[in-house]
């Protein structure tokens, strides 16, 4: 494993830590005051800093350090995590993510933004309440640390950001004041197994002050009962130093999660404990070679203090053991919180995809085998036939299991949205809260990857156009803070994502007028409310009066709709004026297989996605009504539904088929309304493996993809929505004229 691979793993770990960080901050924002949440947030930043240090990513370390210091104030109850504080923290999490991305991919980080946040964070750490103005006057005064003359400290280059210890001003006011800390330190087994050494930590500690120590060996079992790799000792330490508590703690920084540690400023009058303390000699030079062979490359680093030596040591361990430096840092998080998280392995996505492809081939092969056995087995009872049924069952199970490997919770996408809400809301001066639900709903990774963009667009739209300004909201008797709710849930084999805002809803008058102006509809068109709402998905439709940075750049909801459709999904909107809008997206759980109805149209075999079909019926002559040139309706239970000849619309035949000789599939399109699709016959229902036409051939209008049937022939999968849109004709400009192009 070379360094680049290790670094790549570090960045992968960073992504997880950043997600952890954001979800923790959001929990705090929602009023969660569980110390474990604060710890998790702190650990996330701490781990990123640790790993970044090992790779010398100084910008990242510097920012993470300041962020971590402020979080430490929250952790130690010196700073109340109010909404204002959390706002700064959430922004800092965003910047930390940017810095991480920049460190990985290069690219641009808004330095002024990170500088401003550093100031805000420092101000918070110094006990200043966050003010709208970012300038924090008394921040930059670097503590005059006179200690620096003694051992070589703080020159490690890891703290390029001037940091103030103003909050500890009192101690300094006592004049060059030394103070005494009572420290108890009891390492756990993991501390050693991760390559830390208690003796080295104690050595580092002894270097920052005058130390007396008592070792508690009472826990040591008998020789034959002991586990030589377990940890039995504990220490009480009295440390007289000019350093602040944070510096003392930072000695243990990479071991903190693997030991019991308390650091308390001793009260002057009361000596720490009644333990016989042995002074530790200051000259420990004999131990300096101690790091010896294990970290020979980093011996110089070992002479600097805490941060540097620990980070270098972490890096040295990495080289030695070929494990990720990040893993070392993150492992600290992992072991405390993670026993519960279960065991996972990282697998390259390509490998999973290859497996999925192979299983797809297996399904097709199994279908072909079944078919040829059926053809050659007249009575259908042979043992081969029965064995094949079991094989079919197994194949299906294998397929489901493989699909489950690719399934991922939508959480990361949802988390990204909360950042977008924050940023866009800030830009347009609105106050908006994003509530998410069902983040753990799982869906295929491809779907997740492709859904982020349309969702981002919709969220921006909701913030920019959906939610009103605080003034307007107050005038309308609403909470000045708007709410956007993003939910995900499974419903009948699909994932349903809903985006609900409590804004003003769609201004139907304006939408209709705009549609008329843009010649999308005839001026006298009579449209239902639902149809008007759905006009916003029409190509080139934008109601924004001013073109803002956020949305309304001409690429509108039609792009969103097309992306969703490309995923085999549907999107619809419902809106209540004054109360807000609800966008509902229904997406397939996977893009690899599909349950379909296999039908025959003009001698061709087509597959219609089962999810689109409401019912199938055999039309009777009396139910068919013709009008106009070649329009037909079918009456179904007292209502009329347009009848669409699939063979005609796909140009499989030049004249309309006789409906009575075929079968009608009643389908529902996302634009509302139903259509009856005429096909010649139904062959049956089947799960088919989706093969992209675009990748293997070229896009065919009206066709979503293709599949290979049991007999080896290619069958086309119908794009129901495209066919319905093409048949819709007059009321909307067709998005695609199949009859003309197909």
């Amino acid at each position, binding site marked *: 494993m070379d360094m680049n691979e290790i670094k790549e793993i570090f960045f992968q770990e960073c992504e997880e830590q950043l997600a952890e960080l954001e979800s923790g901050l959001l929990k705090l924002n929602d009023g969660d005051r569980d110390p474990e949440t604060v710890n998790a947030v702190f650990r996330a930043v701490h781990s990123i800093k640790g790993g970044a240090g090992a790779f010398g990513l100084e910008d990242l370390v510097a920012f993470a350090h300041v962020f971590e210091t402020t979080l430490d104030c929250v952790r130690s109850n010196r700073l109340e995590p109010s909404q204002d504080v959390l706002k700064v923290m959430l922004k800092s999490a965003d910047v930390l993510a940017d810095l991480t991305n920049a460190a990985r991919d290069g690219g641009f980080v808004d330095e002024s933004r990170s500088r401003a946040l550093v100031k805000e964070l420092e101000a918070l750490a110094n006990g200043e309440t966050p003010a709208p103005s970012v300038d924090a006057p008394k921040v930059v005064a670097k503590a005059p640390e006179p200690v620096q003359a003694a051992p070589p400290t703080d020159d490690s280059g890891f703290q390029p950001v001037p940091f103030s210890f103003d909050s500890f001003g009192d101690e300094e006011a006592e004049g060059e004041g030394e103070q005494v800390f009572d420290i108890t330190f009891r390492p756990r087994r993991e501390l*050693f197994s991760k*390559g830390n*050494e208690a*003796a080295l930590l104690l050595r580092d500690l002894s270097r920052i002050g005058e130390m007396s120590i008592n070792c508690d060996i009472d826990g040591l079992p008998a020789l034959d009962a002991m586990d*030589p790799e377990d*940890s039995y000792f504990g220490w009480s330490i009295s440390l007289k130093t000019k350093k602040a508590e944070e510096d003392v703690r930072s000695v243990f920084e990479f071991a903190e999660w693997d030991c019991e540690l308390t650091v308390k400023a001793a009260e002057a009058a009361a000596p720490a404990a009644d333990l016989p303390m042995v002074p530790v000699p200051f000259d420990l030079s004999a131990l300096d070679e101690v790091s010896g062979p294990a970290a020979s490359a980093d011996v110089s680093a070992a002479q600097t203090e805490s941060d540097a030596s620990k980070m270098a040591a972490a890096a040295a361990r990495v080289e030695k053991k070929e494990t990720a430096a990040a893993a070392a840092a993150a492992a600290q998080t992992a072991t405390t919180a993670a026993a519960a998280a279960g065991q996972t392995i990282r697998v390259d996505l390509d490998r999973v995809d290859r497996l999925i492809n192979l299983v797809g081939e297996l399904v097709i092969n199994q279908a072909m085998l079944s078919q040829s056995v059926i053809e050659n087995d007249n009575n259908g009872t042979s043992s081969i036939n029965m064995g094949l049924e079991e094989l079919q069952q197994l194949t299906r199970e294998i397929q489901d299991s493989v699909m489950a490997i690719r399934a991922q919770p939508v959480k990361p996408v949802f988390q990204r949205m909360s950042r977008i809400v924050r940023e866009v809301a800030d830009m347009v001066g609105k106050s908006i809260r994003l509530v998410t639900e069902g983040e753990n709903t799982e869906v295929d990774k491809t779907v997740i990857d492709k859904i982020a963009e349309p969702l981002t667009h919709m969220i921006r739209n909701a913030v920019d156009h959906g939610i009103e300004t605080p003034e307007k909201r107050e005038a309308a008797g609403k909470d000045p803070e708007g709410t956007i709710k993003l939910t995900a849930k499974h419903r009948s084999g699909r994932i349903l994502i809903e985006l609900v805002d409590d804004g003003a809803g769609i201004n139907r008058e304006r939408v209709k007028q705009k549609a008329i102006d843009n010649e999308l509809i005839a001026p006298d068109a009579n449209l239902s409310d639902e149809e008007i709402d759905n006009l916003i998905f029409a190509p080139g439709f934008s109601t924004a009066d001013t073109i803002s940075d956020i949305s309304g750049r001409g690429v509108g909801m039609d792009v969103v709709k097309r992306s969703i459709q490309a995923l085999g999904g549907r999107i619809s909107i419902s809106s209540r004026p004054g109360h807000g809008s609800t966008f509902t997206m229904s997406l397939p759980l996977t893009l690899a297989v599909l349950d379909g109805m296999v039908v025959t149209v003009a001698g061709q075999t087509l597959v219609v996605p089962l999810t689109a079909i409401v019912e199938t019926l055999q039309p009777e002559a009396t139910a068919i009504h013709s009008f106009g040139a070649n329009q037909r309706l079918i009456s179904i239970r007292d209502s009329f539904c347009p009848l669409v000849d699939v063979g005609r619309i796909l140009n499989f035949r030049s004249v309309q088929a006789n409906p009575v000789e075929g079968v009608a599939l009643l389908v529902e399109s996302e634009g509302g309304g139903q259509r009856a699709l005429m096909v010649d016959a139904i062959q049956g229902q089947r799960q088919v493996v989706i093969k992209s036409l675009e990748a293997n051939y070229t896009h065919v209008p009206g066709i979503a993809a293709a599949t290979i049937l049991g007999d080896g022939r290619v069958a086309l999968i119908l794009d129901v929505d495209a066919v319905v849109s093409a048949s819709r004709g007059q009321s909307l400009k067709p998005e695609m004229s199949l009859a003309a192009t197909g």
Partner: protein
Amino acid sequence: MATKKAASGSLKLSPVLDLTEASALHGTLMSMRGRNVTIDASEVERVGVQCVQVLIAGARAWQADKKSYVVDKSSDAFAKTMQLIGIDTDLLVAKEISK
């Protein structure tokens, strides 16, 4: 193996007594039970807490066995580490008690 056992019941500690040495040291000591032992720590450059735990447990076991257990030579690094981690070298000694 880094720890060397001599027939006379003396044990020369290896220069690096880290985590990986703790089990080996433990095994060596277990195999020397019942005999007087003299420990030579003169070449120790680095000693971790876990090996110290084993050495102290050893002293207690020898004490219980009423056999002698002595660290007769120690390097500067060994002595300083003991001081650093607050271990009195008396804890590393067991006296033979003749029956």
